[in-house]
């Protein structure tokens, strides 16, 4: 079995994996980081979104072996243990941007990527268009849009609770 090495949430990790092992399987089964979820098998729902070298990717359509040497960040890596929540996490709680919680890690990771690409001052239309790759069945998106807008603002330099994402 091939060996793969990468940095996940700041820690170097190594694993022996079958070549067909998906990144999401490696994260969930080998590393027991179960915050990253699988909601479909066609790269549609976005429950599995993580960051590879700072850019959002769907871990259900990425092979673990493709990530050799990469820096991967998952939902578990956003806030330091016992530290404050990331402003985007805090915004999802404050604005009730989640119900069952299953799509939430992917939503938060996708939201951070929207901020990276489109900045801190986001209008509703932009957020809704940019969320095309993430599906939520519970919230009707109303409060997710509010949360992302507020979270993006809070992340701005001088924002309410600026904290480095990764």
């Amino acid at each position, binding site marked *: 079995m091939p060996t793969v090495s990468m940095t996940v949430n700041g820690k170097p990790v190594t694993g022996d994996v*079958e070549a*067909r092992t998906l990144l999401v399987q490696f994260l*969930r089964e080998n590393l*027991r*980081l*179960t*915050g*990253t*979820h*699988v*909601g*479909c*098998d*066609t790269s*549609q*729902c976005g*429950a599995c979104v993580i960051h590879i070298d700072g850019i959002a990717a769907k871990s259900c359509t990425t092979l673990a072996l493709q990530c050799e040497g990469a820096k991967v960040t*998952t*939902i*578990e890596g*956003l*806030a330091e243990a016992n530290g404050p*929540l990331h402003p985007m*996490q805090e915004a*999802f*709680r*404050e604005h*009730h941007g*989640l*119900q*069952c*919680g*299953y*799509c*939430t*890690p992917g939503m*938060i990771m996708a939201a951070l990527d929207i901020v990276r690409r489109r900045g801190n001052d986001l209008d*509703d239309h932009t*957020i*809704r*268009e940019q*969320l*095309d790759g*993430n*599906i*939520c*069945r*519970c*919230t*009707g*998106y*109303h*409060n*997710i*849009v509010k949360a992302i807008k507020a979270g993006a603002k809070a992340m701005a330099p001088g924002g309410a609770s600026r904290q480095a994402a990764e």
Partner: protein
Amino acid sequence: MSATGIGAAVRRKEDFRFITGKGQYTDDVVRPGETRAVFVRSPHAHAKIAKIDASAAKTMPGVVAVLTGADLAGDKIGNLICGWMIHSKDGTPMKMAPHPALASGKVNHVGDAVAVVVAETLGQARDAAEKVKVDYEVLPAVVNPAKAKSGTQIHEIAPKNTIYEWSLGDAKATDAAFANAKHVTKLDIVNNRLAPIAMEPRAALAEYDAGTDQLTLWNTTQNPHVSRLVIAAFVGMAPEHKLRVIAPDVGGGFGSKIFIYPEEVVCLWAARKVRRPVKWTSDRMEAFLTDAHGRDHVTHAELALDANGKILAMRVKTIANLGAYMSTFSSSVPTYLYATLLSGQYDIPQIYCEVDAVYTNTVPVDAYRGAGRPEATFVVERLVEVAARELGLEPPELRKRNFVKSFPHQTPVIMAYDAGDYNASLKKAMEIGDVKGFNKRKRESARNGKLRGIGYSTYIEACGLAPSQAAGSLGAGVGLWESAEVRVNPTGSVEVLTGSHSHGQGHETTFAQLVSQRLGIPIDNVSIVHGDTDKVQFGMGTYGSRSGAVGMSAIVKALDKVEAKAKKVAAFMLEAAEGDIEFKDGKFTVAGTDKSAAFGDVALNAYIAHKFTGAELEPGLKETSFYDPTNFTFPAGCHICEVEIDRETGKTDIVNWTAVDDFGTVINPMIVEGQVHGGIAQGVGQALLEGVVYDANGQLVTGSLMDYTMPRAHDLPSFNLGFTETKAPSNPLGIKGCGEAGAIAAPAAVINAITDALGTEQIAMPATANAVWSALQRATPRAAA
């Protein structure tokens, strides 16, 4: 109102674990020595199984076992059942066909499980499943419910593929009312088949402890006790006390996780056979093939009115597709959850409804958010809107003329509405939605080359399922009460064990709000425990917007008992008569004195028992109650949808959505609004985007999220919400329930808006861009004002 009490928008206690990736869903649970199960599924909609050859699969790397329906039958594992008896008009019982967890001799839908492979890893199980050779003799498939009666017979027990031919109401009196009508509005309606798609796919993890002969099942279920009851008592897997069902965090349900499915039965059976934990997690395509679908009605409906627009009678004939097998509650959905709501918010003297339920070679159909009530509301609200247009009345005006205005109101279809103010919600919605400004907005749209329409839906639903005696008299095999246990610890913190189950509804917060307010203790001192049959006394679970009205009422009853017992303890502590003890804001006082004891001190004294003897009072402070409602609750409201349609593409944009709902008492408005948002999104999905499609051979065409269109963020607007409030008189909190309202109200509002814009009633759901564009080509739109 306190910052954390009833009515406060308390931020959710459960959110921390979900936003940090620490939720524990079924697939996140891992047991030592765990194996993985993969099912071999039928590629045919209808076929005889000639032969299964598992020899090659059994020799594949990592394979632990390959099991088939013959093995299941050999071990005398029983069939899955439908728990609600419906009788046909002629008095005969419904025709419930055998539903084995693995097919026995015959497959009846694409995806029907034929065998299961248990292996060390998921990859090995998948590889081996591909090596299981099954020879099929393909039979003609029955797909279209409207033609099911003339199709190939699927089950021996059900000639003409008919499960029941049921009716409700007075046919003669209804016909007589129609004979005297000045105007009759007629509609043919297809209520499109939907896939529920909770984002967490179903999963089951079963473990057998040979030392204690105990089975444990971690399962994506909305009602773990009902699951345990069915698997123990009907499937016969194990005695009830030897089976523990745990529903950990569950990622959405919407009805689809109420039911007892073959996969959890097979995992339990296989775990005991191979003496290792067995886990199965559905992938999304498997979910499309096996999760119970929703809706799927074909209906002809007629409304009789007099010259003044007063409704005289309604006549409805529906064919309901229940799929290949009768799922757990399937029989009740198109009957007692449907026809009983056909009176809508209106005073209708006569209603007659006939429902024929049929088998087809498709996935079973059962309750999906709203369950019967969205179908009823769509019939009623389309009829009323079209009748108004035909009579030249404004749709709100026709509604007002027919609203039920005095309560209680007995409808001709069983339900007795106990409280409501339908005019109030309509009026408020028309104000918030600026209906007065609609014509101006329509002209602006026209200048931009777009068609604008407005549509109303003044819906009603029956929630708080349900008074057990009433449910029993209608055929339910279970009581529909709820239970609660309130455990006060010696240090004054509280655990509430509830039979309700949260899969996104936020019970850990709302239930704690109730307890915090009632006992005068900080909300952080309250924990809500649910979803484990070893912890919680029996419970009926969460569906039908029942957790507030029924589940919280059970907690109120238990809290009453806790307070009564605590007063006895306080009386000993304060050396006063029990009748003189008062309890307010977390403090026990003796009337007319300055003597007092805090709640925590009383809790401690209940346990140390130093102030009273065992002969006088039992130590401890823990109370249980079972609450059975005295009536259904009747949430109602008005949703107004405004659409803009692009003439060139047929694309419909929802440009304005107003919802004014009467849910009775609202515990947490933030959570209730979230429930409404999600419900509307599902209703809009049904109206504009979603539809399960089978081809003529019974192959599922919409088998992935690339083919089945889920609403995404850019398909929806933000929503304008308002509330009116009439308390539900049948429960102590006055709660009516909010979980399904949006999904019930929305489809009719959308289609009423689109048909208003198009000037034709001929549009079916989902009103995709293609469907709307085609309708535009067929019809000449009413001239834009």
